């Protein structure tokens, strides 16, 4: 199990930032990603592994008038 935005989310072998975003349909263009407090840049989503027990934040910024 990992914590995703402070909620439980099942961990899987081979999980990456990219695979979590795909699973959650997180398609918004402005998401701040942190794994255990460390920022992850967009170009590193596919090669950043997520380990069991990690704390992951995927913070969507606000928009709109």
């Amino acid at each position: 199990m990992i914590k995703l935005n402070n909620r439980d989310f099942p961990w899987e072998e081979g999980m990456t930032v990219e695979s979590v975003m795909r699973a959650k349909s997180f398609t918004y263009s402005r998401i701040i990603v942190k794994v255990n407090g460390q920022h992850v840049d967009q170009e590193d989503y596919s090669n950043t592994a997520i380990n069991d027990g990690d704390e992951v934040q995927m913070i969507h910024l606000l928009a709109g008038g």
Partner: protein
Amino acid sequence: MDIRKLKENHKLLKEYKYELGKVDKGYANRTLYVNISNNTIKEKPVTDFMKDKFVGGKGFGMWYLWNAVTPTTRWNEPENEIVIAGGPVCGITQYAGTGKSLVCSLSPLTDIPIDSNVGGYFGPLLKFAGFDALEIQGKAEKDIIVYIDGNTGVVTIEEAPLEAIDGHVLGEQLTEMYADNEADKRNVAVVTAGTGAEHTRFGLLNFTFYDPRRKVTRLKQAGRGGIGTVFRDKKLKALIIKFSNVKGDLNNAFDQAIINKTGIKYHKEIHDLDSKQNNMRKIGTANIIEVMDAYDLLPVMNYQYGMHPDTQKIKSTVFIEKYITQGVQDGCWYGCSMACAKAADGFELKTGPYKGHKVTVDGPEYENAAGLGSNCGIFDPEGILELNFYCDTYGIDTISFGTATAFAMECYERGIINKEITCGMELNFGNFEAAVELLHQMSRGEGFGVTVGQGIHKMKKLFAEKYGADPDFLFDIGMEQKGLEYSEYMPKESLAQQGGYGLTNKGPQHDEAWLIFMDMVNNQIPTFEDKAEALHYFPMFRTWFGLYGLCKLPWNDIVPADNKYTSEPAKVPEHVQNYLDVVYGVTGKKLSVLDMIKESERVYNFQRIFNIRMGKGLRANDKIPYRSMGPVTAEEYESRKERYDKQLAEKIGYDPEDKTIEEKMAVMREYREDQYEKLTDAVYKRRGWNSNGVPTLEHLKYLGIDFPEVVEIVKDLQ
């Protein structure tokens, strides 16, 4: 069109000459009052009291409106005013989004003050012509125009019998009439409504600006709350202003250099980052159509659902690739590099009085695509553009039209109303022909369109009293509060957004607080106190834009590359500092973030008390329909069964196994309604209000708005 003939038929009712002035640190220091009952025109000074307490823009509008009306005044009485004001920053050309006008009036939908912000050139030109605000009071006997010549210092009231009423025609006619030549057209700005505003309660105002590249008069809308209805009820056909020689230094800023520096930094950000972020320069706010669908937040079929497989037919790229002209500078005021006022050119209309005409459609913005499209089950981009065009030219608010039509469609599908009541119309979801015919009926003042045009609040009453519908069910599914139709986000799964809609001054419009991502997706504000803090800060911060004549979009529809490393990325701290720097540059006023919030709080609390004065503004008025809180029907529950069953088990401790949907829905409803009440308590406390939603005397004193007439309203409600 024979412009000469139109003008020859004008009859001068009043001419008023004034001394041209000079703006000083963002203020013209006077306002213009026009009474169209008795054709009085006069100037009023802008006092230090007004600047200190109300700043400008919406603040000035609320103050003038307060002084114009009594607790018994209604929207269609002569005492009601339409006040248009920019604000001290309005009209600078070095930063994005600095040409906004705020329009205030008593609303035909809500019977309380409404404010609506709008782009276009009228607000800035009004200031450069010599006035920080324009007050229109009274009612004319025949159709009139008010013309302000800011070049020569003349204001006239004229009967104008022959001009069109629909916005896109009238805007063109009057721009042509008052411009000396093609180049001069950019110096003319027109405010109109349209024929639909005459027969509905949600009429809007179109504010024009001339687009020299397309050679058309573009329309921006002050959409919410029915101010266009007030406009036509006063027999106002148009307001026109002319001012030549717009330059970047006309505000006579306190420190122009800091404005320039801040602007250059911001423009570079737009240039470098917009295509990687929200694509505002390509599609404007419609960039989020498919995003809302992906997150189950797009209103579908009267907010029953949050996504639909056919959304891909109306996603932003469809509009970008097939309809919206690309590569054109689309700012609605000079210097706006965000340039999100997108338009579809050469669009051929398929219905109505302008069938076959090739027109420029201003839009679609997100709200139009969601309200006219998915919420009515219409997943047809050309249908959306056609509805968008006719709403604008008829002077009808796309949001209220979309939400009201969606409500009527659901009532039709559920058998609450039938073909006899709809005058033969099959008002099913997805029926574009029926939706556009409703619009044409609103323009002509006939048929079921007039009923829908009265808004959901009136429809609910009619359907219950005349057609025997269950009023409780109508209350549950009718997406209005205080009389105003909801804007186009699905708040069901976000308690904070329910508060963002429900705990507002004017009704459920998202411009105060849009917290769905922060709450539902990011889980950043889990407690009632966290949510209350967000529902204090964001509404106050966002109110502030309307005091200064600013657009909100440049604040957070692009963020600096390093925004993610800041302590509060959602607030975009660098942009907040930009605004403080710009205000300092224009006015010389050094503000902190706390000062900024306090400025807004004054106007926000004043507006709350204004609502109380008009008979609303209490806790009972902040209740919201259950459709915005949770599943009203079994179909809605079924569509999110897994989510809802999980919530019952985990949040409420109720085992959903072997329970009927009705049993589960009842438990869910009790829980969610209780959550909203608890949120209300927390928000009121944070805002300095008592449990009935009344600002406390102590809080009014802290804000410095404990004037006798304000205290008088609330002293017995403490």
